[in-house]
C-alpha cells in the first residue's frame, strides 16, 4: 500500500528529476573514490561537502514549498526546524567526542567545563546514542510545529499574522539558544566534531557518504512530496490554498490538512538540518536568524513556487551564487539578494521553472499578433 501511495503522484517529469538527483548523488561519489586526485575527472572532497550543503538547503526549500506553495501558509520560520534538527545531530556529535576535547573531561563537553557545569543537563541524556538522537531529529521539530500549528490553525490565524508568528518563533529560539544557561553551547554553538557512527567526520570517505545520504534524502523527500501532492489529499490541499472558506462550507476540516503538511514539512526540515551539521562541521544559534528563514522562502520563489522541481533548482542556484559572490565580491551579496527578490517578483512570478512556459506563452502571443 505504501508503494502504491508513493507512486500515485509521481509523474514522468518528477520521475526523471528524481533519477537526476540520484545520479547527482552517486556519480560524483564514484568519481571521488575511484579516480586518482590528479585526474581531470576527480571530484575533490571539498566539492562534495559544498554541494552536499546545497542539497540540504534544497531539502529545506522543498519543505517550505510544501506548506507555502501547496497550502498557502507563508512560513517565515522554517530555518528554526532545520536548526533544531541540526542541534539534535550536534548534541549526538558532541557526545561522540568523549574525552578527546581540549579539557579532556570524559563526561562534560568542552563548553560545559568552560562554563563551570557540574553535571550533564537532563536533556542531554540519551544523545550518546545514535538510536536516540535519530528519532529526536524528527520528533523535536515536529512537536514544535504541532504545538504552534495546533493553536494557530484552530484560531484561524492566516496570512501575514501567521508569517509574523513563525518569524517571532525563530527569533525567540535564537535568543534562547544564544544564552549560555540554555546548556547548548551559547553563542559558540557546537563544533570540533570527531566521529559520526564511529567514522571520522573529516575523512574523505565519510564526506562522500554524507553527500550520498543528502542526495538520497532529497530524492526520498521528492518522492513523498510528489505522492502527497498527487493524491486526493493534495487536491484538497491546493483547494485550501486557493479558497479556504469554500472548503469549510464543503465540510472539510481545514485545520487537519494544514497541520499535517506543516508538521511533515517541519520534520523534513529537521532531517535536512541534521545532515547539514556534520557536513559544515558546526551548529550555532545564528542558524535561527530570521533572515535564514526568509532566504529559504526566496529560494522557493526563485525556483518556482508550487512546483516540486522549482525549490530544488532555486536553492542550488541561489546558494551557488551566494558562494561565488560572498567570495568574489562580499559587499555585493546582500544587494544582489535584495535585487533578486524584486526581480523575481516583477519578472518571474512562476520562478525559473515557470520561465519556459512564460516564454512560450509570450512567443505565441506575438505570433498571434504578428500576421494581423
Amino acid at each position, binding site marked *: 500500500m505504501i508503494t502504491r501511495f508513493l507512486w500515485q503522484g509521481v509523474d514522468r517529469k518528477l520521475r526523471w528529476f528524481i533519477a537526476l538527483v540520484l545520479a547527482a548523488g552517486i556519480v560524483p561519489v564514484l568519481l571521488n573514490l575511484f579516480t586518482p586526485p590528479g585526474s581531470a575527472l576527480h571530484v575533490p572532497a571539498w566539492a562534495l561537502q559544498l554541494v552536499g550543503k546545497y542539497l540540504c538547503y534544497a531539502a529545506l526549500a522543498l519543505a517550505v514549498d510544501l506548506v507555502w506553495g501547496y497550502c498557502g501558509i507563508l512560513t517565515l520560520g522554517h530555518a528554526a526546524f532545520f536548526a533544531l534538527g541540526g542541534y539534535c545531530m550536534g548534541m549526538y556529535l558532541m557526545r561522540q567526542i568523549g574525552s578527546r576535547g581540549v579539557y579532556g573531561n570524559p563526561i562534560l563537553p568542552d563548553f560545559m567545563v568552560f562554563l563551570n557545569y557540574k553535571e550533564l543537563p537532563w536533556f542531554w541524556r540519551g544523545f550518546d546514542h545514535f538510536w536516540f538522537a535519530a528519532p529526536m531529529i524528527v520528533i523535536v521539530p515536529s512537536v514544535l510545529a504541532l504545538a504552534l500549528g495546533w493553536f494557530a490553525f484552530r484560531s484561524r490565524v492566516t496570512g501575514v499574522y501567521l508569517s509574523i508568528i513563525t518569524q517571532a518563533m525563530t527569533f525567540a529560539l535564537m535568543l534562547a539558544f544564544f544564552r549560555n544557561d540554555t546548556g547548548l553551547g551559547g553563542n559558540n554553538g557546537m563544533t570540533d566534531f570527531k566521529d559520526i557512527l564511529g567514522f571520522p567526520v573529516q575523512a574523505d570517505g565519510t564526506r562522500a557518504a554524507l553527500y550520498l545520504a543528502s542526495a538520497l534524502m532529497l530524492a526520498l523527500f521528492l518522492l513523498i512530496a510528489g505522492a502527497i501532492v498527487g493524491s486526493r489529499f493534495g487536491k484538497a490541499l491546493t483547494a485550501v490554498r486557493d479558497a479556504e472558506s469554500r472548503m469549510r462550507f*464543503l465540510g472539510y476540516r481545514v485545520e487537519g490538512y494544514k497541520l499535517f503538511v506543516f508538521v511533515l514539512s517541519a520534520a523534513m526540515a529537521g532531517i535536512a538540518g541534521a545532515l547539514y551539521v556534520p557536513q559544515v562541521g558546526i551548529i550555532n544559534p545564528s542558524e535561527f536568524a530570521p533572515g535564514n528563514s526568509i532566504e529559504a522562502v526566496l529560494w522557493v520563489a526563485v525556483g518556482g513556487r508550487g512546483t516540486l522541481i522549482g525549490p530544488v533548482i532555486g536553492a542550488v542556484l541561489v546558494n551557488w551564487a551566494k558562494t561565488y559572490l560572498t567570495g568574489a565580491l562580499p559587499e555585493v551579496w546582500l544587494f544582489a539578494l535584495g535585487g533578486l527578490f524584486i526581480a523575481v517578483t516583477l519578472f518571474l512570478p512562476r520562478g525559473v521553472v515557470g520561465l519556459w512556459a512564460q516564454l512560450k506563452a509570450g512567443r505565441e502571443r506575438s505570433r498571434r499578433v504578428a500576421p494581423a
Partner: protein
Amino acid sequence: MSAPRSTSALLYLSGVTVSFDGFKALNNLSLLVEPGEMRAIIGPNGAGKTTMMDVVTGKTRPDEGEVVFDGQADLTRLDEADIATLGIGRKFQKPTVFENHTVRDNLLLALAGQRSWYRLLTAAPTRAENDRLEEILAVIRMRPQQHMSAARLSHGQKQWLEIGMLLAQDPKLLLVDEPVAGMTDVETETTAQVLREINKSHSVVVVEHDMSFVRALGVKVTVLHEGSMLAEGTLDQVSADPRVVEVYLGR
C-alpha cells in the same frame, strides 16, 4: 442553554439577532422552511440576507436566538465543516470554484463522503464516485469541459459548475445567493429550470434581487427589511403589500 426545540421544519430560525458594532444586521428574525420547500428571499441591500446565510452556515454566531436544522441540530454551536456535513450546502454570490483545479476535480472535491485528511492520502475515486461524477457532468452539461481548468471557464459556466458542486455535495438544504447575477436572460431562465429540478429532491433557499427570476421560480417569498421579516406570501401578495412597496419595490 436549553435543549434545542424540536420542530418539524427543516430550518427553524427564531428571534435571531446579530449586531456588528451596534448595527443590527439581523433583528429578531424568525423564519421557517419546511422540508422539500423552495423559498425565495428578497429585500433591499443591507436587509440582512447574506448575514442570515452566514448564521445558518456557521460563519457568523448570532448574539441571540435559536437556529435549528432538521428538527434537532443546534446550528449556533457548530462550525462550518460540521454544518456542511449535516447537509447544508451554500452557493456564493460570486462564483467560487477552485480555479486551479479541473472541472472534474472541483466536482470530486465537493462529492459527498470523504472528508478526513488521512483517508484522502490513499483514497482513489471509487467506481460509484466516478459514476456520480459522470451523472453530474451530464446534468450541468459540462462533460466536454471536464478536464479544463476552472479558471478558463466563462462566468456562466462557473455558475453552472458551482451548482454541480452543490449537487455533488448532495445537501438536504441548499442556500443559493443571487444565482443569476450577471447572467443573460436565457441563462436566467435555464437557471430557474435547474433550481426547480433540484428542488424535486432538495430543499432550497434562494436569495435574489431579480424579480423576473423570482417570478419564474413561482414559490413562496419572504421579504426582509432591516434584519427582520417584513412580509411573506406569494410574489403577488407581497407585491401588493404597501409596506413592501415602500421599502423595496417602490424605489
